[in-house]
């Protein structure tokens, strides 16, 4: 048994134990009857949602909302973050504001988005956008502030323009930490969009969760939540893989 496998066995054992306790509670019919379905029932419902193709249009809607919001947040967050990181005075003025707002619940802004952008996709995109913006801008600021000044001197010494300095020095040297911010932002964008859907919507993963909840279709509700978690984990995993590939270009 080496250092890696032992913790892994404990982790697997824990997950298994939790599932067994869950099943035991369901089978015993003593607690939570009718509101906690058996794991098999949940799996069956999840399989049904996939095999009938029922979930895919909703999945696409949520991904669309999350990606658009995320893309806007990334452009804005990276640009602002690098500006703040490069200019210490600006950073001292605005970073506290950003940190304060980062610690507020973004969903509270949702009714404003609903009124201004309507109850369709746009308001969820805005939710995804504000949710993703903060982790991205915070990471970009720290990354840009941490650039070794010598690299900028090198660029200047060979007569690079400021645009060239931005694309050839600032972007590559902040790539990894900014990408970490983007990974966190992507997760936040999904949560933001889905929370919006849970509140007011007529499509998306959040919509099918809350529909199942309202009509007391309990196994379906669990299944949709499970699939949503699976999606979030996959996106996170994919971005982690990407950042491992980027590591080659950074340090």
């Amino acid at each position, binding site marked *: 048994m080496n250092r890696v496998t032992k913790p892994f066995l404990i982790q697997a054992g824990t997950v298994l134990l939790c599932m067994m306790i869950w099943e035991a509670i369901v089978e015993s019919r003593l607690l939570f009857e009718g509101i906690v379905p058996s794991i098999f029932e949940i799996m069956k419902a999840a399989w049904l949602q996939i095999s009938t193709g029922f979930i895919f249009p909703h999945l696409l809607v949520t991904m669309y909302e999350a990606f658009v919001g995320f893309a806007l947040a990334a452009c804005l967050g990276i640009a602002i973050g690098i500006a703040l990181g490069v200019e210490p005075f600006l950073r001292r003025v605005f970073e506290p504001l950003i940190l304060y707002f980062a610690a507020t619940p973004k969903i509270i802004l949702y009714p404003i988005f609903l009124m201004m952008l309507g109850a369709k996709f746009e308001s969820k995109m805005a939710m995804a956008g504000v949710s993703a913006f903060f982790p991205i801008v915070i990471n970009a600021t720290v990354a840009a502030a941490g650039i070794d000044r010598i690299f900028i001197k090198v660029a200047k*010494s*060979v*007569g690079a323009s400021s645009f060239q300095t931005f694309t050839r020095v600032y972007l590559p040297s902040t790539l990894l930490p900014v990408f970490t911010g983007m990974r966190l932002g992507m997760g936040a964008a999904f949560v933001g969009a889905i929370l919006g859907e849970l509140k007011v919507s007529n499509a998306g993963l959040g919509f099918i969760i809350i529909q199942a909840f309202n009509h007391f279709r309990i196994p379906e509700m669990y299944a949709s939540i499970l699939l949503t978690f699976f999606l979030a984990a996959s996106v996170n995993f994919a971005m982690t893989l990407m950042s491992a590939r980027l590591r080659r*270009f950074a340090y």
Partner: protein
Amino acid sequence: MKDSAPILEIRNISKEYPGVTAIDNVSLKVHQHEFVSIIGPSGCGKSTLLEIIAGLLAKTSGEVFIKGHAVKNTHASIGIVFQQESIFPWRSTLENIEFGLEMHGVSKQERRNKSRRMIEIVGLQGFEDRYPGELSGGMKQRVAIARALVMEPEILLMDEPFGALDEQTRIILGEELLRIQQEIGQTILFVTHNIHEAVQLSDRVVVITARPGKIKATISVDIERPRTSEVIALEKFGKLVGKIWMLLREESLKGFKQTAL
């Protein structure tokens, strides 16, 4: 040769940081193909002076002339190798060396050719596609030197380029630097705090005082070229080293007290 117009002249340069005078009224002329070393105690303003000449730092007063023309900004005739490690970790050896050419829109083909030739000159064949993380300290310094040289600057400013290296590597790279200078015909202004290195490489050694940095003395090194590192064994070499140390000793003690405060 010394009678011709200098390729680089600095006149009455001073630099003040808030509360600190880093350089005080320094003037210096450097002629074409000359190798001039600047030596002085730590913190006396050597890096500051070099960055001012390169146009990377604003000066408080004074002027820099290149071939008789006053310059205020960065200049195509000047290349600089920095004291700190400065090659880009996200670029391979070849890409690092190509950097300056790329910024000037030189075609890919020409970039490759020039950089490959430079890689041969600094002896990094076989490491073209390695990233800095996979290179030794000496190799990285050679990449930095090649990156400056490939721009074909007439004047090369070098700020303790071998400062972080061990003694043997330092001597060998110094020898190679002289060979490269011979081959390309650069003018070199070289900062060091190593007296042996200064004598091994230079035509003239300029001794700077402790802060605020002023020129204390200029010593000519009359050892004929081409030189190899074997000059270290010459009697003349030892005498020059001794002479420079006597000039430096007092300043180093002063500098030491400044930092100890």
